[in-house]
């Protein structure tokens, strides 16, 4: 009896959540405008990226500062195979997995030489890897024009589901869905798949082995974990999600250049994880949404200044990053375990009280 009502209430909240997520782009479109729907799409992309990096940093405890390299690889693979650059226009369902797999392979290639490194040393090596990829993309326009250098690759094909392109409006039963709306639903589907995979992995033999390595690598090895293989697996899984997000990014923007894949991106993705709650899926999702949308919201500080003071004292572009930085420092000071810490951390506090 109790179980049945519990189940019903659980399904009820699921239904409510699904309805909310389905209506969200319309609400945002009506309230804030079309550009915010596009931002929402981008935020979903960052959720995929953050969940991918969370496997490497949050679960396995491997501090990776070059994560954006895998994002770049996925994006360039997509651009090469679906743009006028090489005249290839393969379907997205063939390219996306290919880009993700290639990024995964590079994850292993990066992981292999870093297996003996930990902490700061690992961070420096991965940072170097991230920069190498970016600089390659910047310079591989000669002797053979592979990446078109700093100009980047343009006119990348949008994702096409059947005859529907995600960049064109679609009219169903008299309702018109804009490209941004369609992209939202498609990305949401992929985000849910990535969340599902992350959750299943977290509570598995593999997930526990990753956390064990993070907690004490020597004890993990002495408890029978092949630390080399599992660390490589973590790098590969994280990189695969990064590559997937890269392909989506290329198709979404229609244009990519090495500019989009600089060190700041890697750091932002890392911030999303740390700020939200490392190793905890809801925290990471929240962190990704917050850190994508907050800097945009802070652009409105100009309007706010005008309405309060009648004129703009500080350029919103400068103020935005200042406030953003202060917010980061404040969160780390007052909520060091992240905004939505995992049940483990919460239990820690509960235990500390008893």
């Amino acid at each position, binding site marked *: 009896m109790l179980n049945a009502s519990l189940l019903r209430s659980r399904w009820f909240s699921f239904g409510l959540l699904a309805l909310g997520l389905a209506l969200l782009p319309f609400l945002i479109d009506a309230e804030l405008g079309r550009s915010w729907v596009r931002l929402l799409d981008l935020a979903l992309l960052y959720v995929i990226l953050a969940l991918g990096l969370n496997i490497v940093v949050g679960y396995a405890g491997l501090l990776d500062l070059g994560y954006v390299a895998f994002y770049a690889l996925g994006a360039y693979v997509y651009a090469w195979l679906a743009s006028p650059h090489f005249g290839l226009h393969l379907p997205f369902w063939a390219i996306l997995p290919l880009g993700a797999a290639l990024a995964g392979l590079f994850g292993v290639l990066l992981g292999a030489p870093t297996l003996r490194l930990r902490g700061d040393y690992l961070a420096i090596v991965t940072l170097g890897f991230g920069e190498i990829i970016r600089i390659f993309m910047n310079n591989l326009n000669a002797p053979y024009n592979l990446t078109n250098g700093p100009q980047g690759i343009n006119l990348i094909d949008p994702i096409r589901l059947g005859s529907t392109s995600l960049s064109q409006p679609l009219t169903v039963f008299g309702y018109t869905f804009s490209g941004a709306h369609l992209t939202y639903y498609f990305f949401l589907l992929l985000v849910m798949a990535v969340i599902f995979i992350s959750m299943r992995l977290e509570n598995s033999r593999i997930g526990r082995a990753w956390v*064990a390595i993070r907690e004490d690598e020597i004890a993990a090895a002495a408890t029978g974990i092949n630390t080399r293989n599992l660390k490589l697996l973590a790098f590969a899984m994280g990189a695969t999600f990064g590559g997937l997000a890269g392909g989506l990014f290329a198709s979404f923007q229609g244009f990519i250049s090495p500019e989009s894949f600089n060190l700041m991106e890697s750091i932002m993705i890392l911030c999303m994880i740390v700020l939200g709650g490392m190793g905890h899926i809801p925290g990471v999702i929240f962190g990704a949404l917050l850190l994508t949308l907050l800097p945009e919201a802070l652009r409105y500080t100009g309007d706010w200044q005008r309405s309060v003071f009648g004129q703009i004292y500080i350029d919103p572009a400068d103020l935005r990053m200042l406030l953003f930085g202060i917010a980061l420092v404040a969160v780390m000071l007052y909520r060091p375990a992240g905004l939505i810490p995992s049940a483990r951390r919460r239990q820690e506090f509960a235990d500390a009280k008893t």
Partner: protein
Amino acid sequence: MSALLTVSGVSKAFGGLQALSNITLSVNAGEIFGLIGPNGAGKTTLFNTLTGLYTTDSGEVHLKDGQQREHRLNNRAPHQVLKAGLARTFQNIRLFAEMTALENVLVGRHARTTSGVIGAVLRLPATRREEADSHARAHALLKRVGIEQHANRLAKNLPYGDQRRLEIARALATEPSLLALDEPAAGMNPAERSALRELLLQLQADGLTLLLIEHDVKLVMGLCTRLAVLDYGVKIAEGTPDVVSRDPKVIAAYLGDEAI
């Protein structure tokens, strides 16, 4: 009695320091073998060499498994040593602090289970069976060492004595034929000590072979069937507790030459 673990002529040097010189000993199936010696004698170094954390300079280590097959352990990776059937605990407790007691023991099942990423994501029937089996075994082991009430608490928040017990449970989860314990009674109060003694005797009665480093002479003398004594990386005595405790070299090592 057949030798389960055979250590023959193992040496290990760190730079100019000869930590282990030509150590030879064998541990028989079913016994509790004690390894004693003054601080810095090389006991933990020997443990680390046996369990793959250190490589050996020379000598060989062999372990027999349940099917009487010989496995070479020297210069193997720690997880290979464990898979062959030699599990260990650490002198300074090394639990997975941010995992619950149950999860710590579940990690111990890693080497005896096989499900991978695909099994975990799709929750295949084989994976579900394996998980259910691992959970059942882990709960049973927590009960066995007497800390099942702490199953869902973080390892780092457990009382000290229970952390030691949890480390033993984690090692037992790997289904070892030989369990190596590095000072399991260190820092325990008398009540915890006698409970530990009971536990070790029970494990022995169940057919497990134990290799024990311990400083508590009373515990060692009462528990061990045989002992080896190390001093400055050299084995100076081996035998039953009676014989070893009367050995003049052992007395000299512990109390100084003047004592004789």
